[in-house]
């Protein structure tokens, strides 16, 4: 802006400066009119702004020249206001000579004479078209920004480091839970609202941005005065002063509580999915492991085998070391011990330890305590402190260190409330620590093992009873019968777990010798007890000289009255010495009939099949007799020989041929038995048969 002086005749300047020249030097358009609007002065700037040269406008009406129709009223008002002596300023749209409209900012003032009368109006105007456009654009921009901030839920701030003042807009106050206008503008008031857990991180981010003179983004929580927690994201940048130094920060903040909730939820559900997949995998592994343990148990025939198998199956699946302690069935506090370790050298070391430190049933912790209490012990983490505090010996501590124990589980083997022993699983330093799920698995494993152990003992017990019974029912040795050779063959059915019902007996009676062979339907202790009944009934009846059929009739009654829904077959015979040999007198109660090999090489089936014993009230029993002379043999057998599932079954004819082959040229009754056994095995190995076989051979030596 150039300066002008009102005094144009300053003597120091010399040449006078015309007022007109001054007016033309003014950058604003200057127009002077009479109060009626007649133009009397029009400077150069006016010529440039409106396009009219002065000489064309002087004397003309300013209304006609510049005022567009739409602004005539406003122009008249302005003229009247200024005509009355007041000034007016404002924006005005004006017509240029070329027809364009230009927006001007005008100041109109009255020109007064000495008496104070308005004699003219002077107007100063400048083109503000562009300025007004920029101003409108700026205002629009501000409006749009406000709209955008509002729509995005943004609040803005400005922090002046020099004064420490923090300016917040009402939106930001809202984001921090404050009523508009209540934020006191101090830095402390700001930090007090940031969640204490996020404050350090937030301030550190700002500090770093200030140091680096950079922009920053920080997510943090705010705690509203009502105590609720909200997430916000601040995006700021530093503001620099003229010297390029940081003067403060400026930025905007948005609420991100909802997006954060979504993020957290997603993270949470991802974590849950990972967790449940892991759980699923673990439970599958556990099921698989339990399956393996079951297989192992079913493959174990005795306790030692079971102990060895399960410890080997458990390592390394359930531990680097596994020990099983089984109390003896007979009682006593010192268990049988079996161990397995991933490192065979450690097994040797552990055995050596067992030698050095005998099992102490009274120890307050560990296996002895678990066995006494029937409760599990769980040491998820064994560290130096645990070892120091443990109620144990220094040696034991050294052992734990040497073995590198990390985590241990001890579980009792309990079946029906009885503690049969305990198991120990240990992970060493190279493996993971046990979790409670491992304890659960260990207990499940222990339950199965205890169950198998108890069943195994029960079965062994039953087998023992049955075997004891059976053997007590078979004569310990066969009596010598003058002039006759006796031999017996007895093969128990394949499995050997159950005792069969075949029996035989030989005893002295008044008339000579009684010979018995029989088969009780069924196996096991029940059959064995029935066998006892049958055997003793026969003996008692025979000793009382009951006729042959009467002996079996008494057996029939005894079995019927035993109340057991089973029955038996039996063959009762006597051998009475005669001048030429022995007289064989027999009766069969449903039992296979004996085969006799005559001296001439022919065979003969003796007797008549009678009724099963113990099945019906009135059995049909027929006694027959036959003489056995020198060189003749008699074979009595049970149906285990013939009644085999096809194709290994034998007809009576086929059996007779086998008997002929076995007896021909045999030196003794025992040899006949051996040969028969051999022949039968050739048909179907004894081990594969499901039924017992009892064979009795009576041979009268010599030549006929």
């Amino acid at each position, binding site marked *: 802006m150039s300066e002008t002086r009102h005094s144009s005749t300053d003597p120091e300047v010399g040449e006078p400066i015309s007022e007109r020249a001054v007016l033309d030097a003014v950058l604003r358009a200057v127009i002077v009119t009479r109060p009626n609007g007649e133009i009397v002065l029009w400077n150069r700037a006016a010529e440039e702004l409106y396009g009219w040269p002065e000489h064309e406008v002087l004397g003309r009406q300013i209304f006609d020249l510049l005022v567009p129709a739409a602004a005539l009223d406003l122009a008249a008002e302005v003229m009247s206001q200024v005509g009355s002596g007041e000034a007016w300023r404002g924006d005005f749209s004006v017509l240029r000579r070329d027809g364009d409209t230009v927006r001007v900012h005008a100041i109109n003032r009255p020109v007064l004479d000495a008496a104070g009368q308005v004699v003219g109006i002077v107007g100063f105007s400048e083109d503000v078209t562009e300025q007004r456009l920029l101003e409108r654009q700026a205002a629009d921009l501000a409006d749009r920004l406000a709209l955008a901030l509002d729509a995005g839920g943004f609040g803005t701030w400005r922090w002046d480091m020099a004064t420490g003042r923090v300016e917040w807009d009402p939106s930001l106050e809202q984001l921090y839970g404050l009523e508009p206008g209540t934020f006191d503008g101090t830095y402390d008031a700001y930090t007090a609202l940031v969640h204490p857990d996020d404050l350090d991180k937030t301030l550190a981010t700002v500090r770093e941005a200030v140091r680096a003179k950079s922009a920053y983004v920080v997510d943090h929580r705010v705690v509203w005065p009502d105590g609720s927690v909200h997430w916000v994201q601040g995006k700021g940048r530093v503001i620099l002063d003229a010297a390029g130094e940081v003067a403060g920060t400026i930025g905007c903040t948005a609420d991100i509580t909802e997006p954060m909730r979504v993020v957290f939820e997603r993270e949470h559900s991802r974590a849950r999915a990972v967790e449940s997949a892991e759980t699923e995998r673990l439970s599958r592994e556990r099921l698989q492991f339990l399956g393996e343990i079951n297989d192992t148990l079913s493959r174990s025939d005795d306790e030692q085998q079971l102990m060895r198998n399960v410890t080997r199956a458990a390592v390394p699946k359930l531990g680097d070391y596994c020990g099983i302690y089984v109390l003896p069935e007979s009682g006593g506090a010192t268990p049988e011990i079996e161990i397995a370790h991933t490192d065979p050298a450690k097994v040797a070391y552990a055995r050596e330890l067992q030698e050095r430190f005998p099992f102490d049933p009274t120890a307050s912790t560990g296996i002895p305590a678990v066995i006494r209490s029937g409760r599990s012990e769980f040491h998820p983490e064994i560290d130096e402190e645990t070892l120091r505090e443990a109620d144990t010996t220094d040696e034991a501590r050294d052992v734990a260190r040497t073995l590198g124990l990390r985590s241990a589980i001890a579980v009792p083997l309990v079946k029906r409330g009885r503690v049969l022993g305990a198991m120990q699983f240990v992970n060493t330093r190279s493996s993971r620590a046990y979790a409670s799920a491992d304890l659960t698995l260990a207990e499940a494993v222990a339950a199965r093992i205890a169950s198998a152990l108890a069943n195994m003992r029960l079965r062994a017990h039953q087998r023992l009873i049955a075997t004891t019974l059976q053997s007590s029912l078979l004569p310990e040795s066969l009596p010598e019968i003058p002039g006759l050779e006796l031999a017996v063959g007895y093969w128990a059915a394949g499995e050997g777990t159950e005792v069969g019902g075949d029996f035989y007996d030989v005893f002295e009676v008044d008339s000579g010798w009684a010979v018995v062979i029989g088969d009780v*339907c*069924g196996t096991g202790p029940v059959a064995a007890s029935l066998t006892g009944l049958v055997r003793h009934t026969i003996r008692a009846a025979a000793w009382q000289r009951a006729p042959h059929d009467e002996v079996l009739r008494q057996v029939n009654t005894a079995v019927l009255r035993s109340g057991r*829904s*089973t*029955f038996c*077959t039996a063959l009762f015979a006597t051998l009475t010495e005669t001048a030429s040999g022995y007289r064989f007198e027999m009766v*069969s*109660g*449903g*039992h*296979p*009939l004996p085969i006799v090999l005559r001296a001439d090489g022919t065979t003969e089936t003796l007797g008549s*099949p*009678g*009724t*099963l014993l113990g*099945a*019906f009230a009135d*059995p*049909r029993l027929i006694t027959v007799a036959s003489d056995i002379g020198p060189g003749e043999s008699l074979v009595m057998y049970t*149906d285990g020989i*013939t*009644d085999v*599932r*096809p194709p290994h*079954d*034998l*007809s*009576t*004819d*086929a*059996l007779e041929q086998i008997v002929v082959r076995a007896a021909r040229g045999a030196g003794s009754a025992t040899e006949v038995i051996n040969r028969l056994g051999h022949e039968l095995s050739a048909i179907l190995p004894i081990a594969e048969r*499901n*039924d017992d076989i009892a064979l009795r051979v009576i041979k009268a030596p010599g030549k006929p």
Partner: protein
Amino acid sequence: MTATRTDGDTPRTWRIDLNGELDLDTAPALTEQFDELAQNGAVLVIVGLADVTFLDSSGLRALVHGARAIEEAGGRLLVDGASGDSPTRSSSWSSSRCSGLGTHRG
């Protein structure tokens, strides 16, 4: 094993012809059939054993059980073709054992 049941000439008489192996696996079904006939007041049940290729103690037990049950119900159970009177039999499962059971002489 198959069991073919046919009605007899007179009311409440049946004939059951067995074919195949009468053992632990097949005996229970036969036992059930005998119980059912006993409940129905069977007067006579003839069990045909000629085509039985194998008969173990379980099978025998089923037959004995049936004979007892039907007898208690006032009827009779007879077996046919088991007593060794058929020399053409290929198998000699202890037909002798069945001799305690009433034998049907057709």
